[in-house]
């Protein structure tokens, strides 16, 4: 075998892109989707992320991706998908954005198939499964590893553009700072986690950095890398937050050291049943209380029901999957079964699994319009870090769809608007060195405050107390990262306090009913000193035939 020339692994690729390149912060589904959209149009981009795409939280997504493909002969239609999404989100989402999402969903799944995403297929068409809040089978899937399978297909597709130079990866880089002048974002500073070097990257910025898990250490099903630090930095720099009080608790999770593990909604979609013990007998409470959708009610409803039982005398809730057929386990839920075996030492095909709700998704985030523009020019956001599509509660199967579609829309908008930027070159920032990043979370004290006040059931009294406590922590916090996180958490608390009603995933024990005066988007602004919370009207739908 011929010896091969020693290859070097440069920390910084060359040559530099000009400011015409768009900067994407995050290399999960939303970031990859944005990169691919730009590259397909010949527009260069930089894909900045602390880790390679293979490590992004998107690979953890399990159950599936919604699209009204109607391959199951149920006369499904994108507008039914639209209505289910709006209803599931308690009519708090932007209807124009949601309509775009649902209408494009079939095209998106078909494109993923053409990229070789190994979804479950039959006769050349994706097989669809039932998911919560939807009466028709609409969720394309790959066992319970759908996120991994979609990510693999997209990673391979984007690789072609990496080779051509249109997509330049900045792996092991993280956002150091956004460069916001007034109401204009001119680029970013990113820090190399290996070397500590900081680089200035000019041009438009698409944030696709995921949720805000660092506020709830050990309580979430997601990645510890999705800290929310990017969202917090943008918020501190003047980007508005929208609906940050809406946190999705997935009803069926279990605790493992350091985090919570998800039992995919697919388990219930395939026939898994929730029960508790009442007078020593199994009580299938969801089926009795909600005969139409039963165990497949939207996640906010199921989580509330489970939490009520947990807080009452009986306490425990189990998910019974023992009646699922062997073929279902083999073809559709093999990964889930293995996970239960690995981490619980229990076989869900043989015995019920005890479950409880865990933080799974943040419906709120950076405010964006239907074109994924934040309130700062040149700054866009997509995926879980943005507030779009899901209103007060996200339907299962809509997160990956929202990330991919959102990435496409954000990229399209950035492409159309970024040509207005004056040309600048990227360069190393002299005299600035960043610390090596080891994922961290807020202090235990802060985590206790957020966890207690922002649970499934909330009250004005506890929220007010939490705001006071967090303000005290902010006053004494000198670390920039931790201070930003506390400010982000305070915004969540203030929003939850301001919304004096119960809607979707936000349940106030002191305001238990929905109030139409609050069928609006919560907006939080920070001017560097004060936070203000206001309500913004939901856009009326355009056109008469809708």
């Amino acid at each position, binding site marked *: 075998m011929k010896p091969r020339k*020693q290859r070097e692994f440069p920390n910084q690729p060359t040559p530099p892109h000009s400011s015409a390149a768009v900067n994407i912060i995050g290399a999960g589904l939303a970031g990859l989707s944005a990169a691919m959209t730009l590259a397909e149009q010949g527009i260069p981009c930089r894909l900045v992320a602390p880790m390679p795409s293979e490590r992004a939280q998107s690979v953890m997504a399990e159950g599936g991706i919604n699209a009204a493909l109607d391959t199951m002969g149920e006369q499904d239609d994108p507008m039914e998908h639209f209505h289910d999404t709006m209803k599931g989100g308690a009519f708090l989402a932007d209807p124009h954005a949601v309509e775009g999402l649902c209408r494009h969903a079939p095209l998106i799944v078909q494109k993923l198939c053409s990229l070789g995403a190994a979804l479950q297929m039959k006769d050349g068409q994706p097989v669809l499964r039932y998911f919560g809040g939807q009466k028709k089978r609409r969720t394309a899937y790959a066992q319970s590893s759908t996120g991994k399978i979609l990510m693999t297909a997209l990673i391979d597709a984007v690789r072609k553009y990496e080779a051509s130079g249109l997509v330049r990866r900045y792996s092991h880089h993280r956002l150091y700072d956004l460069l916001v002048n007034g109401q204009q974002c001119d680029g970013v500073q990113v820090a190399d986690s290996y070397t500590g070097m900081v680089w200035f990257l000019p041009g438009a910025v698409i944030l696709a950095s995921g949720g805000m898990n660092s506020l709830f250490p050990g309580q979430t099903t997601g990645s510890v890398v999705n800290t929310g630090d990017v969202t917090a930095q943008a918020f501190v720099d003047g980007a508005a937050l929208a609906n940050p009080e809406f946190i999705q608790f997935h009803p069926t999770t279990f605790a493992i050291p350091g985090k919570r593990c998800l039992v995919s909604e697919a388990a219930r979609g395939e026939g898994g049943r929730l029960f508790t013990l009442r007078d020593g007998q199994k009580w299938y409470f969801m089926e009795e209380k909600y005969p139409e959708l039963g165990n497949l009610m939207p996640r906010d409803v199921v989580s509330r029901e489970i939490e009520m039982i947990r807080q009452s005398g009986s306490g425990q809730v189990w998910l019974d999957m023992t009646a699922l057929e062997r073929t279902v386990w083999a073809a559709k839920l093999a990964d889930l079964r293995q996970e239960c075996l690995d981490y619980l030492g229990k076989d869900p095909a043989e015995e019920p699994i005890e479950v409880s709700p865990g933080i799974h998704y943040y419906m709120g985030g950076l405010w964006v319009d239907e074109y994924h523009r934040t309130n700062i020019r040149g700054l866009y956001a997509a995926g879980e870090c943005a507030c779009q599509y899901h209103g007060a509660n996200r339907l299962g199967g809509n997160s990956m769809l929202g990330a991919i579609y959102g990435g496409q829309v954000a990229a399209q908008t950035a492409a159309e608007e970024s040509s207005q930027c004056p040309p600048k070159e990227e360069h190393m920032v002299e005299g600035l060195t960043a610390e090596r990043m080891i994922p961290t979370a807020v202090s235990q004290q802060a985590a206790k405050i957020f966890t207690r006040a922002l649970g499934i059931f909330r009250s004005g009294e506890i929220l007010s107390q939490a705001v006071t406590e967090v303000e005290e922590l902010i006053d004494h916090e000198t670390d920039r990262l931790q201070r930003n996180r506390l400010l982000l958490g305070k915004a969540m608390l203030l929003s939850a306090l301001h919304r004096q009603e119960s809607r979707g995933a936000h349940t106030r024990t002191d305001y238990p009913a929905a109030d139409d005066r609050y069928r609006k988007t919560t907006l939080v602004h920070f001017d560097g000193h004060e936070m203000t919370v206001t309500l913004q009207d939901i856009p009326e739908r355009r056109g008469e035939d809708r």
Partner: protein
Amino acid sequence: MKYLLEIWRQASPGAGSCFRSYVYETEQAGATVASALQDLNERPTLTDVNGVTDSKIVWACSCLQKKCGACAMLVNGRPQLACKALLSEQKKGVIRLEPLRKFPLVADLMVNREVLFAHLQEMKVWAESSVSVNDKNNALMYEASLCLQCGCCLEVCPNFSPTGRFFGMAAMVPSARLLMGLDSVSSKQLRRQYRKAIVDGCGKSLACQNICPAGIDIEQLMSRSNAVTLWHLLR
């Protein structure tokens, strides 16, 4: 239960290195090497068994449930994911943690695995035309989609070196997905790359069998992919 974690400490590639030992106690069922590292780093002050204060341990993690491959390292000499390595399964309560040795060190237990992605790019692992997923190839394409790019299979491979011509199973598995789904015309370029970077270099030691944290049946995938590439060669 009390454990002694012997951890490779090295601040940077050029710096001195040594094992430092830390006592870790937990009663949590299912505690893993990953959760132990998390807990050690959360201590206000990290001190070793001799009472010497240390900096936080540098290691990579993301999902903490064996879906992302970030936390691959040597646990008592065996490459595996820290989030999958149960403390209770380690012999005598002594656990030695080292970085993967086939990749350039960043610090402590963190290595730079960029070479994995460089290899995939060099092999042109992408599709220039539509990929077909059907009832026949679905199961194998699914399996080939699961590769974590963690590098465990390369760590044990006697034929792989980051600067060598053989790219190993971390390149074979993603290639297999496309080879199964592309027609013979569209896969021509990838088949050529595959023969050069995979078939020609694999010594069939089978060291990579049973090492994959994702449970990928490497032998089956490789035999199918080899068949696809070599059949065209012989035709």
